[in-house]
């Protein structure tokens, strides 16, 4: 029952399992319980999922209230297809370790890049105010 045809509304999505991508790069999965006109979300039984390569780990977080402006995108999860993933679930410690390693590698390559540019007299300003993702 579509309230307004041709528009997007979250009302149809209530009480369904969603995957929400936030502006700081986090991925939350939870049941969408409530919304408001700013698309602030109330997520229930939320799990923060960290992806590194082909592995992922879930951190249970409980209830999330997300301010609407911080959401990049969100989508309903098909419960039947949810388990049908090539990704491998690992423990939290493992995935956090993997993430740390990945971050480190990224930082090092970034440092090298900046160094190389500096040697050539170029400087790319870092856009700190933009979203990290």
């Amino acid at each position, binding site marked *: *029952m*579509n*309230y*307004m*045809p*041709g*528009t997007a*509304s979250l*009302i149809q999505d*209530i*009480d369904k399992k969603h995957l929400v991508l936030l502006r700081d790069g986090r991925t939350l999965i939870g*049941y969408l*319980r*409530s*919304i*408001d*006109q700013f698309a602030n979300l*109330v997520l*229930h039984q939320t799990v923060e999922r960290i992806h590194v390569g082909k592995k992922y780990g879930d951190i249970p977080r*409980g*209830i999330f209230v997300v301010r609407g402006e911080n959401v990049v995108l969100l989508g309903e999860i098909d419960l039947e297809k949810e388990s049908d993933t090539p990704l491998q679930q690992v423990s939290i410690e493992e995935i956090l370790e993997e993430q740390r390693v990945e971050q480190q590698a990224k930082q090092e390559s970034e440092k090298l890049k900046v160094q190389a540019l500096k040697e050539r007299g170029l400087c790319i300003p870092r856009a700190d105010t933009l979203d990290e993702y």
Partner: protein
Amino acid sequence: DDDWQEAHERLAELEDKPVASREQDGPSTEDLDLLGDPEDTLAERLTRLVIDSELEDPAIMQAVQTRGPTQQPGGLNSSIWDSSAVLRRMRGPLLTQEMPSVSVLDYALPQRPPQPRDDERDPSERALPRRSSSPVIGSPPVRAVPIGTPPKQAAVPSFNQQILCPKPVHIRATLQQRYPAPYGERMSPNQLCNVPNSSLLGHPFPHSVSPVLTHLQRAQLLGGAQAGRMSPSQFARVSGLVGSPIPSVNPKLLQGRVGQMMPPASGFRAFFGAPPAPPPSQLQHPPGPGSHLQSLRPQPQMFRPDTTHLHPQHRRLLHQRQQQSRSQHRSLNGSIGDRGGHRSSHQEQMRKDPYANLMLQREKDWVSKIQMMQLQSTDPYLDDYYYQNYFQKLEKLSAAEEVHGDGPKKERTKLITPQVAKLEHTYKPVQFEGSLGKLTVSSVNNPRKMIDAVVTSRSEDDETKEKQVRDKRRQTLVTIEKTYSLLLDVEDYERRYLLSLEGERPALMGERKQKICDMYDNLRGKAPGQDRPSDDHFMQIMCIRKGKRLVARILPFLSPEQAADVLMATARNLPFLIKKDAQDEVLPCLLRPFSHVLYHLPLGTVTSLVQQLTNLPQSAPAPTNLHLTAVLQNKFGLSLLYLVLSRGEELQSSDTNTELMQDNQWTELMLMATRELLRIPQAALAKPVSTPSNLLSLFSRYVDQQKLNLLETKL
């Protein structure tokens, strides 16, 4: 402080009550037992609802006790009359107090075990503080319910107010009171689509303007919403009524009743009238029962002129959904009777997901309402031009489809963006009597001047040449923008014309003419004398890409003389323009409007045009005709030349009584032109956009066969 919690729970229970009463599923016997149980409790509850004697009602007794002693008449003589008087007084609270139905049921409901809920349900804290209660000095009083507040109670629609209004005369009238049509007499919007057509025969605008019923027009013909009383007849089929002939529009349709859902505003204000509607007896095809849900066409209705209130159409949509969901629940109730392991989706939901429906239906509706409110605007064509056009296109498509197809007509709900009347706020800052001076308040409606910005114009002396050039270019850009605004207005006049009242039309036409004159002045530059000595201004505009497009769009609106003038100026300076256009290559966009202009030009003008284009005869004898060469080597130039030549040929061949003078001039010109054409090598010739067919016949008059063949190969 658990009141709000309880209240919320009670409201939730209220909505879930019919469904929640059947908690489990199972074999039939159990179900029967379950049926028995809820029914019994229901019966109990019902009996508790109806309290025969006031003296049994605990609530009343409480109330009476608090007030009783003060109300005892006399006191000494207690008789049956006294008691009845007391009774009467006790009855008072019941009668005078308008107890919303909710609260009565609340008393009747048994205490449900509180559902395990982790999250806080706090509707009152979620709401923003009501603006009306906060100290507001310097802002106009808020009459409407602030948008940030969800309704605390279930909105009990009280649609008892019926305001019949005088027949509205026209759409864009000044703020007159107009009201929407009553339910039974509404016409389908499709019927109304034909109205503008009929009433606007012989209007000055070309018929390219589609007779699409504007939202406004539809608005008056379909009335305000009374959410509780929706009848299928008010919704028309999208499909069914296209092309039905409507002679006139009935004024009665425009009377209406408006329901008030919100606390009353200060009164209804501007509405828009419509051309009179056909009498209700001419209503065609009462739409089928099931269709009303789907066939909600864009019918913005007359309604509160405030953008903070929901358009009745949308409101109706909302309540429809509510009713639908309620009826779904009720049907689910009944379905539990028939057996077979039949599980209701709701039961399943309750079983697997005990946290479901934390967001109540009315909260969903509230969000939905806000979203709908955001679609309202005071001028959809201004705020949302592209969607309006897109929507009209869609409608035309579907109308066309329905005309052709004979199958069952598809009905689709469409999203409407209704037009709201502008609410005029005359705001006066708060003043106290007997005080000297005014309060110094600054609010969003009444801002205080913070910065004293002074415009200082630069002196002309110390400007460099570059700056001057830049400024001149900037001025040209500004001129182009101003002229563009005028152009958009002029293009919009057709639509406004269709919407306007008869009396207003001359004024509109006058405005339009004035704007067209202004545009032309802008284009050519305000000439000091009669003659326009310099094309400079025009050339500046034509050097800019947007300027060229602007000229192309303006040309249809100009008078023949003005348009010819523009053409001449272009032709005269064509090599310069060609050089400037090398990068943009926008000149070809002018071809089409130029060709239209050419159709209206007399031979004399055409001759002089050719003269300008080819620069023949040359003022000073030169070995090469640079002007003509440049023209011929450019796509636009060559195409324009061909067009002009072909027009000349048309005129010559068709009109036998051309003046001798002109004829001579033309002939001479043609001779020279052909000579030049022959001289130029073929490789140098550009590829024209189109080669008119009569060129050969043109040339055949002036050259012999040999040369003609040569020319033919070149073309």
